């Protein structure tokens, strides 16, 4: 067991190091001299040299990589050139928007997905089940940024219930901030809810056919008790995996939705940094996101290892 855990943590660290190398190469090395790109080809050599020195580009590549990684390990994510702020400050500012948005979207998706999925599974092959599953097909097919625009059209332009975009900040009172997150939350959550509903339904139908369900009824549990105690619990195992991955997706995947609603979240920060060639910001945030996803995967693996004895015996 301890050996298995150690091996997985080792694999995680190796993958993280490799990711940092890949990201550094893709963002810092491949595109070429960023000082030249900022100043253009007509720039005077001494201006160019000064900017290159300021950006640390006169250092060898290996040195720059080592500095970046060493800083990262110590919690220094670098300094943004365009904002003149440390990347960690910028990230912290944006997380105030991104984390509530991701959590609200996940809660919304799980709430609707679970209830619809369970409802449909318990009435499988009925008319309402077919109607619901047809709806989830549409829910998955809707591009969420287009759905966001439709929401803006209906609830912001026509009904004027929610703002069409922007974020007033939490300082103005929670209500204004929350109401500006409602439409983005719904837009982000819709495809996720549809996916979850289908998975919950499929998973629950599968467990309803298991032998232990017959045993549960045979030992005297009512139909409802058997479903709550045995079927639902077992059906949740694949659902939990999906939810863990969805959270990671929602944190990183809001990039387009944040653009639709002009929300100052993590996705928009990185999108702007890409456009402004603010490379440290891009590198550090991408590594942060990739690291988070890897960490969630590691956590899921360790949980399975703890829960499922069969996995411990392997290898």
């Amino acid at each position, binding site marked *: 067991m301890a050996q298995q855990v150690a091996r997985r943590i080792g*694999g995680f660290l190796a*993958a993280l190091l*490799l*990711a940092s190398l890949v990201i550094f190469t*893709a*963002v810092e090395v*491949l*595109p070429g001299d960023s000082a030249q790109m900022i100043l253009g080809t007509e720039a005077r050599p001494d201006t160019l040299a000064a900017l290159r020195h300021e950006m640390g580009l006169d250092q060898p590549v290996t040195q720059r990589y080592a500095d970046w990684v060493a800083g990262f390990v110590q919690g220094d994510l670098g300094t943004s050139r365009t904002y003149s702020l440390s990347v960690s400050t910028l990230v912290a500012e944006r997380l105030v928007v991104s984390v509530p948005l991701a959590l609200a979207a996940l809660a919304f998706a799980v709430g609707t997905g679970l209830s619809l999925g369970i409802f*449909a599974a318990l009435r*499988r*092959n009925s008319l309402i*089940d*077919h109607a619901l*599953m*047809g709806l989830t*097909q*549409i829910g*998955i*097919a*809707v*591009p969420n*940024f*287009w759905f966001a*625009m*439709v929401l*803006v*059209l209906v609830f912001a*332009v026509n009904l004027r219930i929610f703002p069409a975009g922007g974020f007033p900040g939490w300082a103005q009172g929670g209500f204004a901030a929350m109401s500006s997150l409602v439409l983005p939350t719904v837009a982000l959550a819709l*495809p*996720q809810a549809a*996916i979850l509903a*289908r*998975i919950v*339904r*499929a*998973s629950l*139908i*599968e467990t309803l056919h298991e032998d232990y369900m017959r045993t549960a009824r045979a030992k005297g549990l009512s139909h409802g008790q058997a479903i709550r105690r045995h079927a639902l619990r077992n059906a949740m195992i*694949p659902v939990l995996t*999906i939810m863990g*991955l*969805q959270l*990671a*997706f929602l944190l*990183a*995947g809001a*990039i*387009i939705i944040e*653009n*639709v609603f002009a929300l100052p979240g993590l*996705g928009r920060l990185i*999108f702007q940094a*890409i*456009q402004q060639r603010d490379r440290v910001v*891009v590198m550090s945030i*991408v590594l942060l*996101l*990739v690291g988070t*996803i*890897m960490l969630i995967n590691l956590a899921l693996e360790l949980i399975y290892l703890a829960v499922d004895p069969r996995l411990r015996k392997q290898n």
Partner: protein
Amino acid sequence: MASAFNTSPIGFRIGAGLVGLLLATALVSLFWTPYDPAMIVIAEKLKPISFAHWLGTDHFGRDTLSMVMRGGVISIVVACAAVALGAGIGVPLGLIAAARDGWLRRLVLNGSDFLFAFPALLTAILLQATLGPGMMNAILAIGIFNIPVFARVTHGAALPIWTKDFIMASRIAGRRDLVISLRHVLPNIGSLLIVQLTVQMSLALIAEAALSYIGLGVQPPLPSWGRMLSESQTFIAVAPRLALVPGLAILLFVLGLNLLGSAMSGRNDLTGERRGFDALFRR
């Protein structure tokens, strides 16, 4: 899994009908559209639906119907090419991983997991920003993330085939792994791969639209659904149909592909469903 609605011939017929209709429209637009989709007539700007312009005109006076028709061509070409790139590299990798136990398999599987940790859309944006916008780079940026999906799915499906008796017979007959993979394994997982192709096509369509929406992807004057959406956003209060039409086109196309995929996968199969979704929210 798929309920009776989705697996029945009805689901298949609706899916095939939608996909066929949109493909035919895109094909027709190559030879004929009501107007030149790039023709700017400022005097005709933001005209409502009329006999002259069945879906009205946009803020440059371009005919919306013509743009939607031609816009599909780009989306389809990019999505097909990206998925072909992913399948072309991913499927052979998956076959190799299933045939060879050892470091090669570990390399393919761990490599896939590694790529999965990168948020796909974000990385596609990053790649496009680095390489520059344009159709080829959009194909590359979307295609890369199809490689691990196809490698994983192919490996997962091919592995149980290798334990079958006819494979054993083939090995005893002295066939090489390569020949066995191509002659016996691939035909047996073909239907599954076709289902995965439809899933990935629909994801690629949405990804292409998203890239064009934020200004990467295909550049003007080529019309594309995603860019029509982003241009329409300014006029959403004045001319909501400009936002509705291209979005509906994407929705119907993706819906058609998903219905086709569900109908073809055809059984109460949780693993199939999960596999599809695993790929789905990595967009």
